[in-house]
């Protein structure tokens, strides 16, 4: 390929460029916003593409290493190794570039479009330039320049020295700390951590595109090892159907979270927590339901990147109704995982200074997980918590629900917690036993209650309604789905 872009009018580093608005302010701030957005998306996608090829090179390497011996064979394997390293490095550098454009680029774009003070624009421009120099250094293969300037005015959360990750006690279980910490690292520091900690793909607080790249590689390893082949094959198949999809987490047993696109760049995110009988093998069903809710909430047939839906199968759901109905233990055991996941999405999203909306929906037993996740004073990072067909939210009332408001817990308010069910759905009646707590669709809970009963539906005329009501909430163009969408359309 041509080493130079077609457009040779782009300024070079050696040019003496007037600085900031005191010099020559770009004529069209809106154009900057658009081109930065495009550049961020292109860098992220190219990073993903490179990561995919990295996985392919992995398989070439494994094939040759297994079957070839001798000098020529060893030499071929060595060169494949080197290529693999180059591609992985490039992928990491592109994720870095995309991350910088998303965060520091957005800050500059916002300063420009808001018509802020000169010094605000100059400062945002200076920070962006410093971080882009790190990207340039990495792309040039000469290592990143000093972090000085790049971290100007932005001390790493926790007060650590972001430039020295090896000397920092990284708080892996604090997504908000980690998001800031990760963002402050330069490309080489990131690569070093990725080599040291291959489990970073499941670590909340790392950007989604980077997680996806790590997890896809991990998924291939699980498939090779045949650990949980049915679950992992289903995930692989689901991801292959649409290149925009992302694997936000995966483990050996098949627990996973998949997204319809990049939640870090979305205008809104809807995470769906499925219930009894759900597993990675059926992730496409949960993902489809989540996409339907997104579409209903945005009024779009293909919400695309406007509303990114996430199917969160990060817990081992009870396999049968008996297991589900007799204990909230599984919900309790995995509530902290959901809390951490939501905090991670929120923390990465907020780095650019804009808080995108993130709603969580717990369906059936998923509602118990959702309620349990919000039952501690740290709270759950959600703009809305929607309980659909809930057998009980694991707590008695709204008084036990908390919101993680940018790292600070506060009691949830009535508009933030929604209980929705059809009156013909038998599952919410289970909450009368108290085993799984109270259902938020019960007015005694104190949530906003939405009736999802289809108008005119009568079990006396159609007894099947009593069986179907619980499974039909997310059918496209249905009354319940449109009501759920309507509830989510309101302001955050």
């Amino acid at each position, binding site marked *: 390929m041509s080493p130079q872009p077609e457009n040779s009018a782009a300024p070079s580093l050696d040019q003496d460029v007037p600085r900031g608005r005191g010099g020559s302010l770009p004529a069209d701030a809106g154009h900057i916003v658009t081109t930065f957005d495009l550049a961020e998306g292109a860098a992220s996608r190219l990073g993903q593409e490179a990561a995919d090829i990295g996985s392919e090179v992995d398989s070439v390497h494994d094939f*040759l290493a297994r079957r070839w011996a001798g000098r020529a064979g060893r030499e071929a394997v060595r060169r494949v190794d080197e290529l693999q390293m180059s591609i992985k490095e490039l992928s990491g550098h592109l994720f870095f570039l995309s991350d910088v454009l998303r965060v520091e680029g957005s800050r500059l774009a916002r300063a420009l479009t808001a018509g802020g003070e000169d010094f605000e624009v100059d400062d945002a421009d200076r920070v962006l330039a410093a971080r882009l120099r790190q990207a340039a250094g990495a792309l040039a293969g000469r290592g990143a320049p000093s972090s000085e300037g790049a971290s100007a005015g932005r001390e790493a959360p926790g007060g650590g020295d972001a430039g020295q990750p090896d000397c920092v006690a990284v708080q892996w279980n604090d997504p908000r700390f980690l998001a800031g910490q990760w963002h402050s690292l330069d490309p080489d520091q990131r690569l070093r951590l990725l080599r040291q900690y291959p489990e970073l793909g499941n670590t909340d607080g790392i950007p989604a595109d980077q997680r996806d790249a790590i997890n896809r590689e991990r998924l291939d390893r699980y498939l090779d090892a045949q650990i949980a082949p049915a679950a992992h094959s289903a995930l692989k198949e689901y991801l292959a159907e649409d290149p925009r999809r992302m694997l936000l987490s995966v483990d050996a047993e098949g627990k996973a979270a998949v997204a319809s696109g990049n939640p870090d760049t979305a205008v809104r995110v809807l995470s769906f927590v499925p219930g009894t009988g759900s597993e990675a093998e059926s992730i496409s069903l949960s993902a489809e339901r989540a996409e339907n809710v997104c579409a209903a909430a945005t009024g779009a047939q293909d919400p695309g990147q406007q509303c990114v839906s996430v199917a969160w199968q990060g817990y081992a759901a009870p396999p049968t109704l008996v297991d589900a109905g007799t204990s909230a233990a599984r919900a309790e055991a995995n509530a902290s995982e959901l809390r951490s996941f939501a905090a991670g999405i929120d923390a990465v999203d907020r780095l650019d200074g804009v808080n995108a909306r993130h709603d969580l929906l717990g369906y059936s037993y998923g509602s118990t997980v959702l309620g349990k996740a919000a039952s501690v004073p740290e709270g759950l990072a959600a703009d809305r918590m929607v309980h659909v067909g809930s057998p009980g939210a694991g707590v008695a009332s709204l008084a036990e629900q908390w919101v993680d408001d940018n790292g600070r817990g506060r009691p949830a308010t009535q508009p933030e917690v929604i209980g929705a069910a059809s009156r013909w759905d038998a599952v919410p009646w289970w909450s009368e036993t108290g085993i799984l707590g109270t259902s938020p669709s019960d007015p005694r809970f104190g949530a906003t209650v939405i009736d999802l009963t289809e108008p005119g539906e009568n079990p006396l005329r159609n007894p099947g309604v009593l069986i179907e009501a619980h499974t039909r909430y997310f059918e496209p163009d249905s009354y319940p789905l449109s009501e759920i969408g309507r509830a989510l359309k309101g302001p955050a």
Partner: protein
Amino acid sequence: MSIEETLLAVEQLEVGALARRLEDSVGELDFSARQTVEVLAAAALAAAGMESGPVLAECSRLLAQRMTTLSAESEGVVTGIRDALGILVAADQEVGRDVAAAGK
């Protein structure tokens, strides 16, 4: 065709397919990279007059350069695999000839 010859033919096919796939994938990456290079250059142009403009242009230029290097590296790998395969085939044929000669 002997069993050895059959196995070798299968090996040739498999490795050949792997090498081709690798070539294609890097080719596709190269194509996408060209687009990203252009998008970055456009962002650089939009930000001309600011400190970040020239650095973006530099990123664009370096990405293009990096892809050229990567493509060459990948070409070298594919050639290496094919060369190694050639040696394997030659070695096998030599063994075959030796075995045949010993049997006379």
